[in-house]
């Protein structure tokens, strides 16, 4: 496997929340001003640290949702887990003007590099769409030619993050295709009943293995396991399948 230069030291720094955006009833985007942010590649994440009055602290990883045009804010999108320690704080308590400690960017593998000419397949389960959104945005900004197919599994239509933006991009970004999978309830008039992602979905809405696409799969662990297994069974080269597992069952 190719060797890459080792990046420099990652230090904690205070970011300021400059805006918050409700994406769905249970997911929110934090727009962060991070002084001196070195920039990031689409797919990377950052580590965030919360500290209580008594010094107790908790760290979690969050993928970066925004692309990087050279400056500007860094956006993360958080899905609230009802019994979670950190995510409900980020979706319900944090307000514009608050400071949050973070460090990053982190990760050099789950990254789409626009210089890679292969077609791309992105498969998202729930909040797993976040790092994939950064790839879609980067591609749009660069007007990159690689065709992107996106399969995005959500419980119900109202659980889809970035739905309006995705709709707009499918119209405006040539070569971008998005297919939704609804697992609990589908929109009125949807041609199929709700179902989990399966071989047929990936066969019809992914790329054939012969096209040797770069594949990125992200979401809860069991979702990623299922999708990666299907891709391998369909004949995709395991080395071309990059995965990010967010946790959970």
């Amino acid at each position, binding site marked *: *496997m190719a*060797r*890459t230069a*080792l*990046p*420099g*030291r*990652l230090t*904690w720094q*205070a970011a300021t929340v400059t805006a918050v955006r409700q994406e769905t009833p249970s997911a929110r985007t934090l727009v962060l001003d991070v002084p001196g942010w070195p920039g990031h590649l689409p797919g990377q994440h950052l*580590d965030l*640290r*919360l*500290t*209580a*009055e008594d*010094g*107790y*602290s*908790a*760290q*979690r*990883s969050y993928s970066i949702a925004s692309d990087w045009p050279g400056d500007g804010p860094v956006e993360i999108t958080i899905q609230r887990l009802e019994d979670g*320690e950190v995510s409900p*704080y980020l979706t319900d*308590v944090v307000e514009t003007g*608050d*400071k*949050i*400690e973070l460090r990053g960017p*982190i*990760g*050099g*593998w*789950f990254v789409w590099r626009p210089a890679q000419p292969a077609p791309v397949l992105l498969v998202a389960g729930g909040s797993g769409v976040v790092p994939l959104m950064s790839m879609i945005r980067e591609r749009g900004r660069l007007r990159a030619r690689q065709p992107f197919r996106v399969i995005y599994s959500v419980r119900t239509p109202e659980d889809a993050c970035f739905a309006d933006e995705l709709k707009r991009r499918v119209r405006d970004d040539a070569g971008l295709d998005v297919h939704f999978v609804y697992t609990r309830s589908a929109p009125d008039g949807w041609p199929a009943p709700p179902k989990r992602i399966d071989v047929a979905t990936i066969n019809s809405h992914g790329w054939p293995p012969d096209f040797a696409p770069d594949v990125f799969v992200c979401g809860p*662990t069991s979702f990623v*396991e299922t999708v*990666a*297994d299907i*891709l*391998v069974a369909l004949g995709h080269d*395991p*080395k071309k*399948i*990059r*995965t990010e*597992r967010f*946790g*959970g*069952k």
Partner: protein
Amino acid sequence: MGIISRGFGGRRRDSAPDLPPGQYLTHDFPVLSAGPTPRIPLDRWSFTITTEAGQKHTWDWARFTALPSEEITRDIHCVTKWSKLGTTWKGVSLDTLFADVETAADYVMAHSKGGYTTNVPLEDLLDGQAWIAYEFDGEPLDPEHGGPARLLIPHLYFWKSAKWVNGLEMMHEDEPGFWEAAGYHMYGDPWHEQRYQGD
């Protein structure tokens, strides 16, 4: 101490005893891997130690599982922040596997099915600190968690405990493996919070 997060109390659902800095306790067994989970049939499994002189020591599944094994109970700490206490494993000590290996090299590159690698100093593998584990919680190790067999080095962050391990290669110089080249720490001591390069 970091800046205070307004209105954050923390949940601290588990009165966690001694966890390394930045870690939280989980009772699940989360999964961190870079790609699909490989399924490796036991009749195709093998494990090889290659010395700096190119000498190979190879075990197939039958020979490997015939070696003396140990029950291991240890805490494990993943770089993605979860820790799990008192996990129980069965495996072969690397002291056993290295018994007939002649080497003067100080570093090891662990190789796994699929091309993943991770680097470890040899002294961290010996003296009862590391195993090739093939059972978890009394059951054959799940492919998702690295089965049929994975490296187990509980005193380092868990990415060093390479899943689907199929070989160790001796090296004179320390070189970054797969995760390390992607920005993770060369050594990875959770008690010193060596998550990333430069920590």
